[in-house]
């Protein structure tokens, strides 16, 4: 029979340990540290050293690798195209997704089927989608050319992937297509939280469809647009398969974005040190954008 006092003391100690916030955070923090902080630390270590192509560290070089990246004309080109790429896909997918989400939110016969069809691109791996599109855009035997010729839009084949002026816009369009399902999911969640009586009241007051959209739907959807912007920016900024499968960043690096340029540096040219420096730069860029955007969006909401 144990001593009642010590038993109580034990229970107290157990409780105090369990409600300690650091103890509660610890499992999640350790997991996050393992999968985020540890690679980050080791890649930072590589970025400030001279490294051979087998990953063996040599001399400490400070910021030399970063200077190499900044001095590389390909870096600035890729940075500019990354901005166009992210803005094009994020803005494009939001503009398309809002009306589609509103239609899918309305009650109509076959809505379930329509939702499934809209979501389908999400179920297919990004690489598969990109391969199918690369075939479709083939200049000689692609479905895109033969389709457009059949309906009379084109009178001769376009070599879609032969130059950046056609390849890059098409890559952004594919990016929009595959980003739409996720964006719609966010907006459907947002729309279902808009109370129906607001719409009823507006209709009683004689508001037209555009006014309802501008004065009710859009303002209430705004937090969800912010979520879509932040999440999509993070995904699209680091999205590799579409560009790699269709053009590998070519011809002559004219469709390279930062992440394809990073891959070439690291795995084709074996410049692991410069590649590590670039990936840290990309991490900082993305983090800075996200923090800035979230702060601006939050401030607006509070005001």
């Amino acid at each position, binding site marked *: 029979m144990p001593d009642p006092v010590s038993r109580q003391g034990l229970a107290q100690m157990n409780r105090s340990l369990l409600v300690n916030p650091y103890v509660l955070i610890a499992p999640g923090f350790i997991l996050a540290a393992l999968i985020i902080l540890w690679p980050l630390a080791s890649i930072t270590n590589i970025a400030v050293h001279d490294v*051979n*192509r*087998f*990953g*063996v560290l040599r001399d400490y070089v400070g910021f030399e690798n970063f200077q190499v990246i900044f001095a590389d004309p390909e870096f600035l080109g890729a940075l500019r195209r990354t901005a166009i790429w992210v803005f094009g896909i994020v803005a494009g997918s939001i503009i398309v997704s809002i009306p589609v989400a509103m239609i899918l939110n309305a009650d109509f016969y076959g809505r379930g089927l329509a939702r499934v069809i809209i979501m389908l691109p999400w179920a297919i791996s990004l690489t598969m989608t990109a391969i199918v599109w690369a075939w479709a855009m*083939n*200049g*000689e035997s692609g479905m895109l050319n033969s389709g457009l010729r059949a309906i009379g839009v084109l009178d001769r*084949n376009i*070599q*879609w*992937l*032969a*130059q950046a002026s056609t*390849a890059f816009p098409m890559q952004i369009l594919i990016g929009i297509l595959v980003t739409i399902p996720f964006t719609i999911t966010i907006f459907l969640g947002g729309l279902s939280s808009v109370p129906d009586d607001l719409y009823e009241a507006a209709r009683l007051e004689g508001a037209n469809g555009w006014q309802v959209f501008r004065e009710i739907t859009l303002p209430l959807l705004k937090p969800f647009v912010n979520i879509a912007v932040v999440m999509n920016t993070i995904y699209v900024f680091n999205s590799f398969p579409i560009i790699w499968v269709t*053009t*590998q960043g*070519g*011809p*002559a*690096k004219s469709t390279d974005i930062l992440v394809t340029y990073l891959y*070439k540096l690291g*795995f*084709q*040219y*074996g*410049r692991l040190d410069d590649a590590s420096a670039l990936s840290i730069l990309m991490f900082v860029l993305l983090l800075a954008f996200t923090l800035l955007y979230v702060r601006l969006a939050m401030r607006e909401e509070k005001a």
Partner: protein
Amino acid sequence: MSFVSSGRLALAASAMALVAGAAMADIRVTVAEYSSLTGPFFNDAAAAFEAETGTKVNIEVVPWDVLFQKLTTDISAGAQADLSIIGTRWLIDFASEDLVAPLDDIISDDLRERFVPAFLDPSIMDGQLLGLPVAASARAMYFNSDLMAQAGVESVPENWEELADAAAKISALGDDIYGFGLQGAEIETDVYYYYALWSYGGDLITADGTSGLGTQAAVDAATMYKGLIDAGVTEPGVTSYNREDVQNLFKQGRVGFMITAPFLATQIANEVPDLNYGVSAIPAGPDGDRGTYGVTDSIIMFENSPNKEEAAAFLDFVFGHDWRVRFDSGEGFLPVTSSVAEDPAFADDPVLSVFASLLPTARFAPTIAGWEEIAAIASDAMQSIYLSDGDSAIAPTLSAAADRINALLP
């Protein structure tokens, strides 16, 4: 009780296995998977070798795409195999880290003398033999005999001038038929240009150690290719055609001429056996110069291998005549040993004998650390030229590329 005894048994068994392993000196060989025949070939050779010598050989078959990655990972962990197949152009990267064992004193003179000397050259650095050629390939021009006959082209073009005429005639046959298939995308875009560069008397690295792209020969060769594009005798949009895309056009009978490796003949035999085609030398330049691209893969021994003697014995075994005949004919490679080159399986083959006859003019990628990046710069320059309007961009683009390459050259 039964748990304890079975645990003990397992322990004893593993201890025995350890002792056995140490005594038998197993060797490990990493091989690149060239085709579905590669794995079975090396496993059969390993089994026969074990039956003969008692040394067990573990074969690790790795797809080409991930071979470099695997070796990098193994090396950084210090866990590389005893022997490995590598692309010969990687040799410099491995050798500069002192990872490769010189073979001069390890292999017998008899083994060394089996090879065609030209194939050993790319593996010799600072006078030391660092690898043995295990696979060799060269490039030649494929021509579609039916298209030539329809267009009234009577003989296979001997030089680029004749080729331009013949290609124009073939292109005139129809809207979706093209005279000359020009590769302008992805890996080896630069190589497709080097064929022309060499025939114009140029070189990748000139005698003074700078990039050959800065020479007049480079400008002339690029101007010639650009002329073919602008005359409309190549497929349209060359910068979207990788090697497989151009080969597909050839297999569909829509391209008169293209330059590629022996494996296209294997594909044609399997996929379109009725295609009426032939193989000849790459056209010569204005001064009669010719050049084809030779590629070899080497098998190397790692410096930290504890079983160098056994590994050398396996090399001696697997480079025996009968094994080499089976390997080269199965994979469609050119013979690297003299006795196999004289074997009827190769000497009498109409396609392979043409490729083999070109080997004296074959050039290999220079053994320079970081060659992949130099190749990418050259490829980008060619794509810019193919895309540009007119000829005015050719010289400046090439000289800018040459400057960037010179900065990377040692």
